[in-house]
C-alpha cells in the first residue's frame, strides 16, 4: 500500500472519528441538559452547579451581560448592544424583566470616538411590549446622538456621578443639539422609571437633560448632575410636567446643576409629587431661576443657590398652592442672588421654613423673600450683616373679601422699615425706644403682669412705638 493510500485511510478514520466524537459530545451535552443542567444563555453569568453528579459551569440568569450582544468588535455601539439584549430573539428577553449589566462595555469592545463610547440610537427603539429592566451603565463617557426614551419600569443606574465631568463615574454627554431631551420618561402614563448615579453633560443643549411628562409612582431621579444645559422654563435641565401622570413621582433628590448661559435648573410643574430633596444650583452667568415651582402640594428641601437672579420662583406660570419649602440657602460664591424666594401673585398656602443667606462681600443676596401676594420684601444680607436668616414665612389663602388681606406670618428678623408684622414675646414690657418695632406687630409680656399682657406697635414707621392694649 502506498503512503498516499495509507494517509487517505487515516483521513477517513479521522473524519469518521471526528464525526463520532462530535456526535458523542453533542449527545452528552443534550443528555446533560435534559437532566439537570440549565442550558447557558448568551449573557448569563457563569456559576457552578451540581449537574449529573458533578460540579459544572452553568449559566445564571441573575443578570444579562450586554457586552456580549450585538456584533463583536468595536463597530457596535453601547446603545445597539443594550438594544440587542432587549430585542433578542434568542435568548428571548424575559417578559418579567431583567438586570442588564452594561458595565463591561468599554472602548476596547465597543464603538468609541475620542475615548468616549458613542450612542447613535435609543436603546429602547423597536422594543415591543413590556420590557422592564434595570440597566447598569459603565464608567466613562457616553456620547448621545439620540434621545433615550425609558419605557415603563425602567431603571437606569450609573456607576457613580461626580461634580466635574471627565472619565470617571458615568457621564452621558449630548452631542446632538437637536435632541428634544437627553432622557425622557415614557411616552404615556407609566411608573417605576428612574435615573441614578449619572452625570449629564448637556454640552450647551437647549432642552432638558431629563424630562418627565408621564411617569408617576416609584419614578425618581437620584444623585444626578446636570452640567451645561442652557434651556429655561419647560426646557430647563430637569422638567417635571404638569398633569396627572407625574403625580406621586419623585423624590428628585441629591441633584447638582451648573447650567450654561441663561439655563435654568428645574422647571417643576408637577403636583402632589414627592418633591425635590437636595439640590445645589451654581452659575456664573446669572440665569433667571434655579427652580421654577408651578405645581401644588410639593416639598422642596435642602437647596443651595449661588449666582442665579432668583433661587426658587413660585407661581410664575401657574397658580400654586400648598407647597412647603425647607432649608433653602443662598451664597454668593459663584455670583449674586437677587431674591432667594420670589412668590408670584397666584400663590396660596406656601410654607417656608429655614431660609438663609451667607454673603462673602456683605450685600450680594438682596432679598430673602420677595412676596408679590402681600407686597412683602424681607431684606437679605447687608454690609454689616453678611448673614441673613428667616425661621418661618407662612402664606395663607385669600379669604375672599376685597381688602380683607391674606393670612401671613413670619418670624423674620424685623425692623421698623421692613413692615413685616409679627408676634413677639418677652419677659417684661417691650422697649420704649422710638422707631424700633415693626408696625402692626403684637407683643406678649409672658410674665403675666396685670395690665401689661398685650401690646401693639403703631406707626408712623420711623417713630413706631409699642402701645399697651390689655
Amino acid at each position, binding site marked *: 500500500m502506498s503512503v498516499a493510500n495509507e494517509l487517505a485511510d487515516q483521513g477517513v478514520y479521522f473524519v469518521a472519528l*471526528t464525526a463520532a466524537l462530535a456526535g458523542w459530545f453533542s449527545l452528552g451535552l443534550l443528555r446533560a441538559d435534559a437532566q439537570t443542567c440549565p442550558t447557558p444563555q*448568551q449573557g448569563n453569568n457563569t456559576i457552578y452547579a451540581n449537574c449529573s453528579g458533578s460540579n459544572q459551569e452553568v449559566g445564571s440568569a441573575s443578570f444579562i451581560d450586554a*457586552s456580549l450582544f450585538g456584533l463583536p468588535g468595536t463597530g457596535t455601539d453601547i446603545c445597539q448592544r443594550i438594544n440587542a439584549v432587549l430585542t433578542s430573539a434568542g435568548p428571548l428577553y424575559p417578559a418579567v424583566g431583567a438586570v442588564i449589566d452594561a458595565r463591561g462595555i468599554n472602548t476596547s469592545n465597543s464603538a468609541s470616538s475620542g475615548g468616549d463610547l458613542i450612542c447613535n440610537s435609543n436603546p429602547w427603539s423597536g422594543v415591543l411590549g413590556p420590557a422592564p429592566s434595570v440597566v447598569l451603565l459603565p464608567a466613562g463617557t457616553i456620547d448621545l446622538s439620540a434621545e433615550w426614551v425609558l419605557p415603563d419600569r425602567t431603571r437606569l443606574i450609573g456607576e457613580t456621578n461626580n461634580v466635574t465631568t471627565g472619565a470617571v*463615574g458615568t457621564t452621558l454627554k449630548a452631542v446632538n443639539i437637536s435632541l428634544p431631551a437627553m432622557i425622557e420618561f415614557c411616552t404615556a402614563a407609566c411608573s417605576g422609571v428612574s435615573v441614578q448615579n449619572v452625570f449629564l453633560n448637556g454640552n450647551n443643549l437647549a432642552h432638558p437633560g431629563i424630562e418627565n411628562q408621564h411617569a408617576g409612582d416609584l419614578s425618581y431621579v437620584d444623585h444626578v448632575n446636570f452640567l451645561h444645559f442652557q434651556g429655561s422654563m419647560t426646557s430647563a435641565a430637569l422638567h417635571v410636567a404638569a398633569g396627572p401622570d407625574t403625580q406621586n413621582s419623585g423624590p428628585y433628590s441629591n441633584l447638582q446643576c451648573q447650567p450654561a448661559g441663561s439655563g435654568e435648573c428645574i422647571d417643576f410643574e408637577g403636583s402632589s409629587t414627592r418633591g425635590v430633596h437636595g439640590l445645589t444650583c451654581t452659575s456664573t452667568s446669572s440665569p433667571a431661576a434655579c427652580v421654577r415651582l408651578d405645581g401644588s402640594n410639593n416639598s422642596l428641601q435642602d437647596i443651595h443657590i449661588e449666582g442665579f437672579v432668583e433661587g426658587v420662583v413660585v407661581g410664575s406660570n401657574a397658580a400654586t398652592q400648598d407647597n412647603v419649602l425647607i432649608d433653602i440657602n443662598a451664597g454668593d460664591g459663584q455670583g449674586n442672588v437677587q431674591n432667594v424666594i420670589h412668590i408670584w401673585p397666584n400663590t396660596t398656602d406656601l410654607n417656608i421654613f429655614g431660609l438663609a443667606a451667607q454673603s462673602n462681600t456683605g450685600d450680594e443676596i438682596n432679598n430673602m423673600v420677595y412676596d408679590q401676594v402681600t407686597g412683602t420684601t424681607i431684606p437679605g444680607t447687608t454690609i454689616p450683616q453678611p448673614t441673613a436668616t428667616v425661621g418661618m414665612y407662612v402664606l395663607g389663602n385669600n379669604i375672599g373679601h376685597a381688602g380683607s388681606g391674606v393670612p401671613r406670618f413670619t418670624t423674620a428678623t424685623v425692623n421698623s422699615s421692613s413692615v413685616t408684622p409679627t408676634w413677639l414675646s418677652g419677659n417684661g414690657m417691650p422697649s420704649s425706644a422710638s422707631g424700633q418695632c415693626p408696625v402692626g406687630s403684637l407683643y406678649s409680656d409672658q410674665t403675666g403682669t396685670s395690665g401689661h399682657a398685650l401690646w401693639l406697635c403703631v406707626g408712623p414707621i420711623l417713630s413706631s412705638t409699642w402701645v399697651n392694649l390689655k
Partner: protein
Amino acid sequence: VEFAKTSGFDSIRFSLSVVVGLFVLLVVRATAQNPGNNAVWSSPTMVVASSSFVDASVLPDTATSHDICERINAALWTLLQPPYGGAGVIDARGINTSNTFSAGGALPCSHSPWSNSWTHTFSVFPNAVVLLPAGTIGLQANANWVLPDRTRIIGVGSGANGTSITTIQAGSGFTGTMIQMGATTGLSSCPLINGTNICSGVAVEDLRLDGGGLGVIGIANAQSQELSYVNRVTFYRVRGTGLLVGGGTSGGSGAQNSGPYTNIRFEYPSGTPTSSTLCAWISGAPTRGIHGLTCSNSTATLPSVAVNVDSNNNSIEDIYISGFADGIDIGSNANAQGNVLLNITGNISSP
C-alpha cells in the same frame, strides 16, 4: 514517512487529542482573562471574560495569607489598568474566612486598602464603588480607612447585632476615626479646588461600625461636599462620636452641601459611654442635614447630648432619642441659624 507509517491506534490517539483539545479550547475558555474578571456565557458553549466588575476575592492571588484590605487594595490597582480607565466596581462580597486571612471568625485588616502598605505604589486612587462582604472586618491599629475622592463603600446591610450584615470593627489598639471621608493630606487627599481640598461623591452605605467600646469616631467628614453622604449605617458601641460632620469645635466649611445623612442608628446597649459620647455632630457649613436617626443608649451612664447642631441651615428630621440628657443641642459650640427640626421624639427607654 515515519508519521505516515504510524499505526491506526496512533492515528486515533492523535485525532482524539486534537478534537478534545479543540473542544476544550472552544467550549470552556475562548478568550484571555485577567484575574478578577467575571465570566459570562457568550453562547451555550462558550465562556468569556467580562470587565463589568473586579472580583477582589482572587486578588492579588488565591493564597489565603492575604487579608481583605490587601485584596481590595489589589483590586483598586486593577481599576487603574486597562480597560477600566480609573473607575469601576470592586466586588469584595466573595471574600470570606475560607479564602482570606482570618482570625477568630473575623477578617482582619492590617492596613487601609487606600494606602501604599501593600505591593503596589499608588500616586492616585481610582474612583471605585466597593461592595463589602457580610461578616466582620477588624480594623487593626493604624488601619484607619481614609476614602479618597469619589469613592463609595457599600455593605450588605446594617441590621442588628448578630445578623448577617457587614460590620467594620475597631480592634484593640485602634484609635482615631474608623472611616474618614476625604483628607487634606496624604494619599487620599482631596483635589485642590481654589486652594482648598474638596472631595465629592464619597459615600458609606449599608454597614455597621462597631467601635468596640473605644473612644473612636465612627465616620468623620470634614472634606467631602456635594453628593457625599451616609445612608443606612449603624454605629455600635462607639464611645466617642458616631457621625462627625464638619470639624467639630473647629468648624470649617469642608462638608458644605454634603448629605443627607440618612437612616442612621446609634446603639450603646451595654458598657460605659462617657458624658461626651455623641450620636452625631454637625458643625461648620450648611449640609443636607440628618434625615432619620435613632440614638439609643441603654446603659446606666447618661451622656450629655445625643446630637450637636453647630452650623447654619440644616434640616434635622425623623429623630428618635433615648438615654441622653439632652436630645439635640443647638448652637452650644457655634452659631446655628436657620435650622429646621421636624418630628423629633425623646423617650426614657430604648426602642
